[in-house]
């Protein structure tokens, strides 16, 4: 981690992981050695594709009702129809299409919230760790304070008060994720601050912001990427829970959480409605987690033990 630029840092770690410098295409070799990460990339890739290609992948308009086709089971069951491969809900809406379009919401909120949270958290952690003293105390007390709330309850209350919309949900989710970045970044900044290359930078007259962003920030790349994937998974799970409880992105936009809630009320007569969105959430989160675990091993073998 002594290299000062990110790309160089990644390359050396990757080369080390594959057993030495000079080997061709180290990253591809790593994929073969890490089947879980490959699987994770595959799953995440599928969900991203579904979200981007939704109009072509979905069989029908996810909002369009069709009462003639209501409560149909998946196509492989009797009464099932190829028009709705995973069945329909009580309004005849296509479950498959709703899952495909629902991935857009999950990914949008997950990505945006974890990025905003990351931006705020990394900045806060960097400033706290770099300046120390009073700044550090204040930032870390705010972190402690935020962590004291059962996050889902806080998110629920805020989302309900602000009114559920895509932007509000992203902000609320970001509020539940920045603290982790801040804590980890602060810790690493504290140790980097004392290193010789920072003294050297200061000696040649670099100002604080330059030291923070040009010299310390690149060294945070690996841990921040790892936290980002873990937080992305957590935010996707939490968004689905909020949506399940009725404070997600409002209808008629299809979300996985609300599909589950709707399916719950007809559980005994139409179990498929609640079943498939749950599988979609699980596979997405699993994919992100596999990818994150693999990324951690790839970027920084020393982090491997800290689950």
């Amino acid at each position, binding site marked *: 981690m002594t290299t000062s630029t990110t790309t160089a840092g990644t390359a050396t770690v990757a080369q080390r992981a594959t057993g030495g410098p000079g080997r061709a295409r180290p990253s591809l070799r790593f994929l073969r050695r890490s089947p879980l990460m490959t699987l994770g990339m595959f799953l995440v890739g599928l969900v991203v594709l579904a979200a981007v290609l939704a109009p072509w992948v979905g069989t029908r308009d996810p909002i369009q009702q069709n009462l003639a086709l209501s409560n149909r089971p998946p196509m492989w069951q009797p009464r099932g129809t190829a028009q709705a491969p995973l069945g329909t809900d009580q309004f005849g809406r296509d479950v498959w299409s709703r899952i495909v379009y629902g991935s857009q919401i999950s990914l949008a909120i997950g990505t945006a919230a974890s990025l905003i949270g990351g931006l705020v958290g990394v900045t806060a952690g960097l400033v706290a760790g770099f300046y120390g003293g009073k700044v550090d105390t204040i930032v870390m*007390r*705010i972190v*402690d*304070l935020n*962590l*004291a*709330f*059962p*996050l*889902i*309850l*806080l998110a*629920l*209350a*805020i989302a*309900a*008060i*602000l*009114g559920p919309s895509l932007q509000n949900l992203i902000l609320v989710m970001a509020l539940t994720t920045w603290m982790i970045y801040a804590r980890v970044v602060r810790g690493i900044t504290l140790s980097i601050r004392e290193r010789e290359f920072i003294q050297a930078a200061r000696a040649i007259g670099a100002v604080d912001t330059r030291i923070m962003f040009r010299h310390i920030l690149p060294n945070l790349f690996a841990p921040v990427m790892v936290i980002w994937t873990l937080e992305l*998974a957590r935010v996707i*799970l939490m968004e*689905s*829970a909020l949506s*399940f*409880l*009725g*404070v997600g992105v409002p209808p008629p936009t299809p979300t996985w959480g609300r599909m*589950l809630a709707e*399916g*719950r009320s007809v*559980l*005994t007569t139409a*179990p498929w409605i*609640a*079943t498939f*969105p*749950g599988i979609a*959430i*699980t*596979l997405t*989160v*699993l994919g992100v*987690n*596999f990818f994150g675990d693999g990324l951690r091993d790839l970027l920084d073998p020393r982090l491997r*033990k*800290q*689950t």
Partner: protein
Amino acid sequence: MTGFVIQRLLLAVLVVFGVSIVTFFLTFLSGDPAALMLSADASAEQVAQFRHDWGFDDPIIVQYGRFLGRALQGDMGMSLRHGTPALPLIADRLPATFQLTLTAMAMAIFAAIPLGVISATHRGSAIDLVTMTVALVGQAIPAFWLAIMGILFFSVSLGWLPTSGRGTLLHVIMPASVLAIGLTALLTRLTRSTMLEVLSEDYVRTARAKGLRAWAVLSRHALRNALIPLVTVIGLQFGYILGGAVVIETVFTWPGVGLFTIQAITNRDYPVVQAAVLILSTAVVLINLLVDLLYGLLDPRIRVRA
């Protein structure tokens, strides 16, 4: 040690104070608490009357002072829906929530530690592989979905367990197990990794070299040291479990604080929501304080550094 305890106590008080500020300002997020608590079709006079009755036309700092003063005397305002004090409404439902969360935590701890130890001692074996795969999936499954599938399978199909409510021991099994899944998965992975770390330490090799039985090495030398990081994580996870309980209580209509708070949110009964947030957050702070003190007791290095 006394200095350490006092320092931690002061910190906890400070955090609870912060929690009270955030809780108070929750209702101001939308701009106007009066408009938030009344239904949308309330007339301007009704809003003005409500604002006056509830003291919303005083300066904010005065309002906060009043809020804090009352809260310290156990008065969190009146429930708009039930017309009775909000705090007792929450307090009455706390035992149900604690029963659920503590059962879930106990289940997770008793399942995860043996599983993690076995995985670590049989690293690379089939048991290890299966345990770790299940743990990975367990961390990815949304608990409320698992709850629904559990109801479908164990209640609807098999008829073994009740679908909802609280009463007998049978009622606790499914909600607590579902709530425990995520924590069990996390703790199993953590136990395995800390055990692997500890098992490669010199003192474990020494213990083995002097001829101690494998069991004694594991339990007295390895596990005891591996437990230290586990205690912290278990403490930190309490907040997550409480949050998870909010969701799980709703699925199983478990009559705890979570279900009640969700209903209060739906009914715009914000004094109750505030009381719930304040009480549950204070509970998290207290548990973390307890863990901090326990940690200091387990590991002398912590209290000396502090």
